[in-house]
Every structure is written in structure tokens, then in C-alpha cells.
């Protein structure tokens, strides 16, 4: 008989999470490659030219998925930060540290592609409206988290300090998401919402969603590779890493 109770704390230990993460990475990498190639195909060859914006709108296929990932990864980072503060598990801090660089990457991509989209459509690279400003603050939160952790030598203290910063900064996520409703922004409102029908052509939406899944799989592959590196670096002197080193000679 298989016990119906799953011991969730089993995978909170680096010793058991390390091989699990290693098994998942190839699958996430393959799924990311397939989704991104297929998404780009839809984005450039299936989706029609936009009636108002011409071909400039094709930036949407990376801009929106990258912006989603920037917020989504921050929420997961804040979740692991909270888990670390509550349960004091070793894995939590490692996961939060592993998520930050990929989150910062997608935040930068969202800002960069947004600037290149804003110039031809709004006539300006940048404007200090609520959506753009709060997304820029998100980038600084990621950088601040990484700088704070890098400045503290003891990893466990670095984890706790980073976790507090990550949790306080989480208030920025709803501000980014709802900024286009709460304030009068130059940035347009959401094209896709949970409650209403999307306000875009089906093929454009399909390309965007497939790219979003591609970025999602990419992020998880990158984060799992990074968390494995962090485990090896931090637990260099533990028995399980030594045994691992012997097996993989």
C-alpha cells in the first residue's frame, strides 16, 4: 500500500532535492525549446500584421511573456523567502537566491522591449508612468536582493536578510499588475485577463501564450540548474556532496 500522505519536507533537504532537480532540467529545457520555436513560428508566420501598429506589435511575443515572468518569478521568490523564515529549511533560501537572477533578466527584457515598442508607437522610449516606474522598481528589488545576499558572508544570515527584503518588496507586484487600472497610464490596459475575453486576435494570443509557456519552462530549467550549483557550493563539506563527487568522477 502506498501511503497517501506525502512528506513534503523530504524535498526540503538539498540531499533529496538535488537529484530530483537534475532529472527535471532536461525535460524543462526540451519543453522550453519546443515552445519557443513553435511560439516564434506562430508569432512571425501565422499571426497577421496588426491593423494599427503594423509589424511593430510583434514585440508583444517576448514583451508580455517576459513581463509576466518578471512578476511571477518574484512571487515564487517571495514564497520561498516566507517558507525560509517560517520553517527555516535550507532549501528555501537556496531557491530564493536561484530565482533572483532569472527574474532580473526577464524584468530587464520587459523594460528593454517595452522601450523599443514605445518609441515607434508612443513616440518615446520611456515615460515615468505608474506601470513603467513600478516595473523599474521591480528590477531594483531584484538587484537589491542579490546585492544584499552578496554582501553577507554567512549564507544563512544572507538568506534571512534577503527573505525580509523579498517579502517587503512583494507589495510592488500588485502595484505593477493593477497600475494600468489605478492610475491614468500611457501604458495600455491588459489585453488578457482572467475574467474577460481577450481583446486580441486568436493567433496573436496563441503565439503569446506559447511563448509564455516557453519562458516559463526556460526559467524553471535555469533556476533548477542554478539551485544545484548553489547546493554544491554551499554544501561542499557535507557528506552527500562528497559522495556525489565520487559517483560522478
Amino acid at each position: 500500500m502506498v501511503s497517501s500522505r506525502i512528506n513534503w519536507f523530504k524535498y526540503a533537504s538539498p540531499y533529496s532535492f538535488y537529484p530530483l532537480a537534475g532529472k527535471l532540467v532536461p525535460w524543462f529545457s526540451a519543453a522550453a525549446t519546443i515552445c519557443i520555436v513553435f511560439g516564434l513560428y506562430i508569432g512571425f508566420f501565422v499571426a497577421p500584421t496588426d491593423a494599427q501598429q503594423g509589424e511593430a506589435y510583434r514585440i508583444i511575443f517576448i514583451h508580455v511573456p517576459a513581463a509576466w515572468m518578471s512578476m511571477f518569478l518574484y512571487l515564487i521568490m517571495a514564497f520561498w523567502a516566507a517558507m525560509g523564515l517560517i520553517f527555516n529549511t535550507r532549501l528555501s533560501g537556496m531557491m530564493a537566491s536561484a530565482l533572483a537572477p532569472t527574474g532580473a533578466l526577464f524584468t530587464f527584457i520587459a523594460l528593454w522591449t517595452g522601450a523599443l515598442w514605445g518609441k515607434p508607437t508612443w513616440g518615446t522610449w520611456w515615460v515615468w508612468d505608474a506601470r513603467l516606474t513600478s516595473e523599474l522598481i521591480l528590477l531594483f528589488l531584484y538587484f537589491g536582493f542579490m546585492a544584499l545576499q552578496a554582501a553577507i558572508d554567512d549564507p544563512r544570515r544572507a538568506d534571512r536578510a534577503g527573505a525580509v527584503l523579498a517579502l517587503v518588496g512583494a507589495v510592488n507586484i500588485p502595484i505593477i499588475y493593477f497600475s494600468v487600472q489605478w492610475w491614468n497610464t500611457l501604458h495600455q490596459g491588459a489585453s488578457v485577463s482572467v475574467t474577460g475575453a481577450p481583446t486580441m486576435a486568436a493567433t496573436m494570443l496563441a503565439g503569446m501564450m506559447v511563448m509564455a509557456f516557453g519562458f516559463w519552462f526556460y526559467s524553471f530549467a535555469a533556476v533548477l540548474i542554478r539551485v544545484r550549483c548553489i547546493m554544491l557550493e554551499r554544501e561542499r563539506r557535507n557528506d552527500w556532496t562528497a559522495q556525489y563527487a565520487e559517483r560522478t568522477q
Partner: protein
Amino acid sequence: MNWQSWSDFLTMGGYGLYVWGSYSVTLVLMVLEVALLLNRKRTARQQLRPGTAEAA
């Protein structure tokens, strides 16, 4: 099909600079992240090997 020729594809209806500027920077950053990660992984594994490990 949206494009009549390669140059048509690269011009992007006059928005080539903006579209390809977005896609190229995204591609470069993602490839760079993967390269840095694989390099970090190799270094972390090398430091586990007996002999090359730093003195504890």
C-alpha cells in the same frame, strides 16, 4: 504568409530596428545566462573533486 522575401522579413514593415533590437537582446541575454550557468556548474563540480578542493 506574411513575408514576400527575406528583405521583407528583415525590414519588418519599417520597424526592423525595434523588432530585431528586442529579439536580439533577448536572445543574447538568455544565451549568456545559460553559458554563465553551465560555467558555474562546471566550476562547482571541479571544486568537489578531491585534490582540487580548497583546504577545509
